[in-house]
């Protein structure tokens, strides 16, 4: 068997090996996967390692450390090397690259050449090796092999490794990167001024002309100290010409400083929202099954209030600045932006850990669009949408909503009730508001509990001050003796089923009653020994 055959066979074996894939996946989770649960611990561990190794380095400048310092240094180094190799390993799949090359050459009917495959493997790995973060990693390792003093400086590069593990640091970097053009412009201007000023001062302040500037390096040093408004004063101009140059340099220095400050400040201001949003997304990473509320209008506010009361996790997307501020004041997680942006929904975990999406904006077009987007991202997520107009109802259902609600329909209904029957209105109002102590509650009949197999008449409902509204049963239960029954989506509601109706396990009683009465009967159901 030739080497080529062996390589290809190994590549195929790796492709099929589940153990290999699992191991690689574990390393990926540890090092790179931003959503894995273990990675934050790894990041903190590495950060501590970096900081302590640099601390040991600094401490050893004036103190003599024992042999353990050498061991510690070696241990850190081993970790760094393992990390570097691990990252290099999970960056891409070598066997896939090889197989791709192989299959390509099969396709165009050319002999497969190992050298070509290796070249593309190298190319793709080189992409990782030449990335800034990988270079920093390498610089943190390399200086350990040399005892040269200047290379020890590079050991401080380890501190840059902290960037890798701290997300806020990375954000700082990305902010600066986005202002690249401005910063390069400023740098160019600075270089120009420095060149002009230092040449001038070199010329005017040379010892021959009565000055104290000895060389060109000194004049550059002086110009930089002056332009940055630091002004140590170790080198000062003595000639009139030199002082003129200094004055011009000081004025332009003010400009440079203010330009630089304004670039940084404006960059941060522009990015502030994004930094905050990222923080929200990070907090959400830990949650499961939370609710995404699109639209923090007046209805959204009420829903958020109820969810907050029940301590259920949720996040709000709202585009209006004022509403966002209101939500922030309440201490809710909120992201300012358009819910229509599918990227925003994905960032907030729709398609991953989000459990429900509520589309509550006052605009039906947006509600339909968001419903559709959320359904596309996750086929199992529960979507409840608001229809501001009657015709939107079925459009929302078509777009994939689990429920579509017309919020004002119920308001119209109870308002209409008030005209004819003001007393009945009170009862309905209490039920729809859910704020009264009397509520409509469901009580599930557990299998093999004391309720299982009893008739309604045998239940002590009256003693417990509960009014039976009806029983929810499986859809195929007979309703022979029940005078009115209604079929729900997958179950059947038996209204006022009568004293002879036999309860079975998994049936659900719907009762009106005081919340304490409901709690009472639920407790009784838990204690299996209860007998009437």
């Amino acid at each position, binding site marked *: 068997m030739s080497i080529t055959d062996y390589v290809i066979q190994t590549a195929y074996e790796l492709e099929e090996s589940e153990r290999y894939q699992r191991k690689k996946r574990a390393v990926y989770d540890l090092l790179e996967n931003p959503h894995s649960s273990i990675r934050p611990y790894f990041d903190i561990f590495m950060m501590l390692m970096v900081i302590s190794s640099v601390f040991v380095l600094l401490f050893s400048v004036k103190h003599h450390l024992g042999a353990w310092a050498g061991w510690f240094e070696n241990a850190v180094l081993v970790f760094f090397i393992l990390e570097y190799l691990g990252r290099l390993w999970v960056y891409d799949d070598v066997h896939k690259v090889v197989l791709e090359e192989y299959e390509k050459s099969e396709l165009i009917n050319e002999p497969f050449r190992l050298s070509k495959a290796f070249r593309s493997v190298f190319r793709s790995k080189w992409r990782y090796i030449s990335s800034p973060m990988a270079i920093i990693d390498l610089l943190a390792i390399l200086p350990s092999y040399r005892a040269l003093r200047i290379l020890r400086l590079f050991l401080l590069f380890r501190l840059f490794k902290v960037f890798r593990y701290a997300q806020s640091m990375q954000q700082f970097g990305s902010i600066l990167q986005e202002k690249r053009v401005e910063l390069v412009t400023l740098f160019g201007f600075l270089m120009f001024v420095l060149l002009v000023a230092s040449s001038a001062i070199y010329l005017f302040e040379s010892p021959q002309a009565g000055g104290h500037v000895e060389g060109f390096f000194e004049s550059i040093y002086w110009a930089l100290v002056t332009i940055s408004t630091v002004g140590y004063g170790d080198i000062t101009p003595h000639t009139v010409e030199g002082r003129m140059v200094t004055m011009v340099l000081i004025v332009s220095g003010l400009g440079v400083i203010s330009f630089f400050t304004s670039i940084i400040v404006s960059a941060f201001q522009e990015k502030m929202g994004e930094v905050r949003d990222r923080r929200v997304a990070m907090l959400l990473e830990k949650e499961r099954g939370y609710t995404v509320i699109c639209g923090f209008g007046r209805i959204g506010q009420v829903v958020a209030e109820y969810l907050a009361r029940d301590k259920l996790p949720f996040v709000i997307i709202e585009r209006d600045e004022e509403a966002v501020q209101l939500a922030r004041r309440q201490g809710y997680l909120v992201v300012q932006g358009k819910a229509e942006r599918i990227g925003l929904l994905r960032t907030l975990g729709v398609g991953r850990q989000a459990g429900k999406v509520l589309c509550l904006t006052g605009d039906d077009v947006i509600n339909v669009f968001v419903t559709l987007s959320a359904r596309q991202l996750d086929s199992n997520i529960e979507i409840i949408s608001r229809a501001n107009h009657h015709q939107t109802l079925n459009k929302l259902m078509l777009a994939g909503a689990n429920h579509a609600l017309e*919020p*004002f329909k*119920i308001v*119209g209904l109870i308002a209409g009730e008030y*005209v004819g029957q003001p007393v009945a209105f009170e009862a309905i109002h209490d*039920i729809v508001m859910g704020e009264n102590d009397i509520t409509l509650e469901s009580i599930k009949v557990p299998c093999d509990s004391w309720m299982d197999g009893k008739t309604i008449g045998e239940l002590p409902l009256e003693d417990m001050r509960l009014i039976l509204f009806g029983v*929810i049963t499986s859809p195929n239960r007979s309703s022979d003796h029940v005078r*009115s029954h209604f079929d729900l989506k997958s179950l059947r509601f038996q209204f*006022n089923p009568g*004293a002879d109706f036999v309860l079975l396990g998994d049936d659900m009683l719907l009762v009106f009653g005081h919340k304490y009465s409901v709690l009472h009967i639920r407790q009784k159901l838990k204690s299996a020994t209860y007998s009437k």
Partner: protein
Amino acid sequence: MRSTPKKVVVVGSCPVGMEVARQLMERGESVKMVDDLKTDVEKARTRGFNVEQINLQDDDALRRVGIGDGADILFALLDDDASNVFLLISARAIAPNLPIVSISGVRDTIVRLYAAGATKVIDPYRISGYKIYEHMHRSLIAETLDRTVFGRGDLDIAEIHVTEKSFLHGKYLDELSLSDRYNLIVLGVVDREYGDNLIFATDPKRHKLDGGDVLVVIGPEDAFAQFQHDIETEENFPGDAHS
């Protein structure tokens, strides 16, 4: 079952106003819609509502649409709380006894709307918000209610007025057993002995029905009609013969 149509004035052509007007018209009431914002009026007209544009700050205009002059009830459904309060005060000054139902945009205004003379304040956003919450966490109850009570008139919540002459007069609530006889569940009662508020039927006291009391029952429409019919025609409680 319903008596002569009532004259209702609906002020406000916002979504809530349109929905209320639509449902009232479906129930056969005589509805008059007014608003003072031209854009809202136009919008409602394109949706097929007959809205009259009047100046709501002018008392004569209010009188002309029937407030204090023929209207049985006023719905103040403007989108803006301040306008609602102003309208309520104007209407209350013209017609001291007119029932007025209003909506509140923010929770804090409910008290102010009552102070301005509202008979009843509805919080549409709270109702809608709670409905959505209910669909999320008590979906079975929400579905049942939607299917029965708030659906297309399958189950009605209705009130029965007890008169001195009816057989209900002098009966105790717990001896009626309406659920067996009529398939009606008693939700609550207004017992004039204890005031004018609705008392839920879970109340531990025994309530004796007298003339002027009101029962609130829930049940199918035909059961309700049968009961109403019996009250009007029968001399004695149908159950008495058997027991």
